[in-house]
């Protein structure tokens, strides 16, 4: 029987990637995600895989493009400033419909920022990050167990929909250790007839390319891609709700913010305040319908984020501004305490009870 082991979130990502068949990793070190590269450097040579520390993040993402084009499971990882550098390559991958896993263990920004946890790359992740009309499928883990599980899920979904998938974590998720059950997970197998594997003189050659100088053709490519996006929005939305059914005040947060919010919600319940927690697991597609349904009973929402207020826009869009949404956040590597979130919940509750 599989046994629980203690692992850092970063290590869990690496092990899970290997378990589901990833044999190619290209990256460049940056705090707070370097353990992923370190783990891959140790393990890949032993299992016939490729670990390559590239000369830069830009080189690494272009190596990912090459490996993904050949149809193999491939990943890269970085932290905020490094992800910006990868932006051009990520847009090209979206344009070429190439599946791969891109991990962002976020740190404070903008610029070089700091090395402490942050969620301020939310816009960058959910809006694509590079140029052109595209999305990444964005998954937000909130435990070491989910770092592993969503890594496998990310590879599967990337292959299934031919889309680059981003695992959006933060410094705490990467650095913390928790017990994790690493089940033998091979993920799902998707055939890749589009891959550049050699024709064997038996078929017409495949082309992987994001360039088309014919507007009606490029339009068709975009429309085809958005049809796949619509399928993803229909099938792959994931979220967790905690004590939401009778809640007047609902906190919305992902990753570490959701865990802090959960403590605050428990404390609020102990005081007799009807509070609940909503945690998006997919950030794109955002769980709009579930949140809108929640707005039928909840009176106020609080967006808990490690940013100056990015996800709050998706919350307001999801509930079509039918309820007030306030922001509870810290930035720069700071994390709100459960007491700070509790204070925001109390304030919302007082407004509701005061009939304001």
């Amino acid at each position: 029987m599989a046994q629980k082991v203690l692992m850092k979130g970063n290590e869990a990502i690496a092990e899970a990637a290997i378990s589901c068949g990833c044999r190619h990793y290209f990256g460049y070190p940056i705090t707070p995600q370097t353990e992923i590269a370190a783990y891959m450097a140790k393990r890949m040579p032993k299992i016939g895989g490729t670990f390559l520390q590239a000369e830069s993040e830009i080189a690494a993402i272009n190596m990912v493009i090459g490996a993904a084009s050949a149809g193999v499971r491939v990943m890269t990882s970085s932290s905020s400033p490094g992800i910006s550098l990868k932006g051009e390559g990520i847009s090209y991958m979206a344009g070429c419909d190439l599946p791969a896993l891109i991990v962002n263990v976020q740190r404070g920004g903008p610029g070089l920022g700091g090395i402490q946890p942050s969620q301020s790359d939310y816009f960058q992740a959910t809006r694509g990050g590079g140029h052109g009309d595209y999305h990444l499928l964005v998954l937000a883990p909130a435990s070491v167990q989910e770092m592993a599980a969503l890594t496998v899920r990310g590879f599967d979904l990337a292959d299934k929909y031919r889309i680059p998938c981003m695992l959006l974590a933060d410094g705490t998720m990467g650095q913390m250790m928790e017990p994790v059950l690493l089940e033998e997970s091979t993920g799902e197998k998707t055939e890749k007839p589009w891959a550049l594997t050699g024709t064997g003189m038996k078929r017409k050659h495949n082309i992987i390319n994001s360039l088309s100088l014919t507007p009606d053709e490029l339009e068709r490519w975009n429309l085809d891609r958005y049809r796949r996006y619509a399928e993803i929005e229909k099938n792959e939305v994931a979220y967790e709700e905690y004590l939401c059914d009778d809640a007047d005040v609902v906190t919305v947060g992902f990753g570490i913010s959701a865990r802090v919010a959960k403590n605050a919600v428990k404390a609020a319940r102990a005081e007799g305040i009807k509070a609940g927690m909503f945690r998006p697991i997919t950030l794109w597609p955002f769980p709009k319908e579930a949140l809108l349904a929640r707005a039928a009973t909840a009176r106020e929402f609080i967006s808990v984020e490690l940013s100056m207020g990015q996800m709050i826009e998706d919350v307001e869009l999801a509930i079509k501004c039918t309820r007030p949404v306030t922001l509870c956040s810290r930035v720069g590597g700071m994390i709100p305490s459960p007491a700070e979130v509790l204070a925001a919940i109390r304030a919302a509750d007082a407004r509701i009870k005061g009939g304001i």
Partner: protein
Amino acid sequence: MTKNILIAGFGGQGVLFTGKFLAYAALLEDRQLSWLPSYGPEMRGGTCNCSVIISDEPVGSPIVTEPDILIAMNRPSLDKFEPAVVPGGEIYVDSSLVDRKVERKDVTVHYVPSTALSTERGFDGIANMILLGSVIEHSAVIDKKDIPAAMAKVVSAKHKDLYEFNIKAIELGYEFG
């Protein structure tokens, strides 16, 4: 039961190692836990801390802001975190390095001269484990019977001598504070 533990000291005093040992002991007891290090430049000197939560329920936030147990291995750590300890909580102080008493009256305090003891008794460099011995003795945060197995998880088999050394240091801690 949930125990929020904050271990704080200088980089190099074994702050993260102490936390890791507790985490493995809790894992062996099949309890829920989280271990979160400070991972900034403090790891290379300066103050460093580590949050460990051991619980019977799934752990919420892994960041310990209001510790039930504070292990203060130097003066700056006591100064910084003493006010955060919950009323009725416990503070363990390395009294050879901290030159003041705890001011709070609503907490239980254990003073262990662990750095002096480690030098005296030939346990150089593992004052942390002596202090931890006192924590285990008084707080029952982990079961004493799990100590050998937990130690085997954090000290590799190649270093059999270090294994014995650390266990003896913990046992020395039982007798003090």
